[in-house]
Structure formats: structure tokens, C-alpha cells
């Protein structure tokens, strides 16, 4: 992920890079919990207007959440997989 997040906390990344309307799009993209993320992986699409910057920012938050062993259910691992897939598609 990008260096622009290096000196920021997860909260600062959320406030600085993920606007309210983008969060609604992330929720649409991820669905609810583990089942929602699995479903999106099966029927993959990226909501219109979900930006590269939002995906990168959420990916950084998810990565740190996983690293701190706070993702007991595995929902963040699945969301990170979705983010990486979306970044690949947008980058193509």
C-alpha cells in the first residue's frame, strides 16, 4: 500500500481519506460481515464512484487491523482480498 499512510493512525486515515459517501459505497461493496464479503467475492462488482484512494485507505486500515490480531472472524482478510481484486481491476 501507499507511503502516504505511513505516519497516520487508522483513525486519521479514515478521517483524511474516506469521505462519508465513500463509506456507504464500501458498505455496499463489502456487505455485512464474513458472509457479505464471501458473497461479493462470488458475484464480484465494484460500485460506481468507489475511488482508488478510498480502496487504498481501507486496505491500509484492514491490513493493520489484521496485523494487530483484531480480525477474529476473518472479515477483514476477506475485505482485503476484495480491495486487492478491485485495485487490480481499476489498475488494468
Amino acid at each position: 500500500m501507499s507511503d502516504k499512510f505511513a505516519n497516520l493512525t487508522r483513525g486519521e486515515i479514515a478521517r483524511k481519506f474516506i469521505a462519508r459517501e465513500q463509506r456507504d459505497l464500501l458498505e455496499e461493496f463489502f456487505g455485512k460481515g464474513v458472509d457479505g464479503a464471501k458473497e461479493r467475492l462470488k458475484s464480484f462488482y465494484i460500485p460506481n464512484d468507489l475511488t482508488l484512494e478510498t480502496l487504498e485507505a481501507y486496505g491500509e486500515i484492514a491490513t493493520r487491523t489484521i496485523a494487530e490480531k483484531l480480525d477474529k472472524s476473518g472479515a477483514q482478510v476477506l475485505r482485503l482480498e476484495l480491495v486487492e481484486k478491485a485495485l487490480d481491476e481499476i489498475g488494468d
Partner: protein
Amino acid sequence: MKNQNYLLVELSDTPRFWLAGEIPDERFLLNGVEYEDTGFGDFIGFYDYLRDTAGEVLGVRFFPFEDLDFAENKINLFASAKKDVDESKSDDQLFVDNKLYKSKNGKLLLTFLAPTENFASDCKIYHADFAEIPLKVA
């Protein structure tokens, strides 16, 4: 019946739960206590509704971001005396409409997007009536 879109939880050893139709303003009175927005925004961590095997909501589990400086990185807030959480039904990882308010005497209050399911029958949930803050006259 008014819409109950948001859940408010006052943090204490026995947390108190309210449902509200709207997210509170920057400052408000609730149950005689004046709260003020701490300014961390409304994406301050992740949260899961804690459900039993029947899908009834027993409480909420909050994973605060490090900015908030909470002593724990996971806080279980039960509205029910029942604690038999089914983890497979308690993995929402929601992250919207989640704000932190603080009173002058240090009471903390969190907001969450309300669950779509019913709370367990023994849960004590109040309806939040926000009072206007009276003007101070010198």
C-alpha cells in the same frame, strides 16, 4: 412509532442503551447529562452486534481505533443478562455512524447504526429524547 435508526450506549460497568431517530448534534442533553462530540469523526473503529443462536441482539462489541486511547482494543457492551453469543452471527464489522461523545464529568457515549434485528426480550433499551441545552445567563 418513531424511527429508531441509531443506538447510543453510555459506557460504564453496566452500560445504558438508548435508541434514537437521529444522530445527535455536536452538543446535547440526554438524561440530564450534557455530552459533546469528541471530534474524532464517525469512523472510529469497527463494531459487531452480538447475537445469540436465534439471532436476537444481546449487545454490541466495539473495536476502537488507537486514536481514542481506550484501555482495551475490544469492548463488549451487553444490554442483556444473557451472554451466550453465537460468534458466527456476530461478525458484522460495521463502520458507519460510529461517534464518541464525552460529558464534562468524563462519561463516554458511543453511537452506532441500530441493528435491524430485535433485541433479546430482557434488554433494557430506552428511547432517547434529546433536550435542548439551556442558555447560561450571566
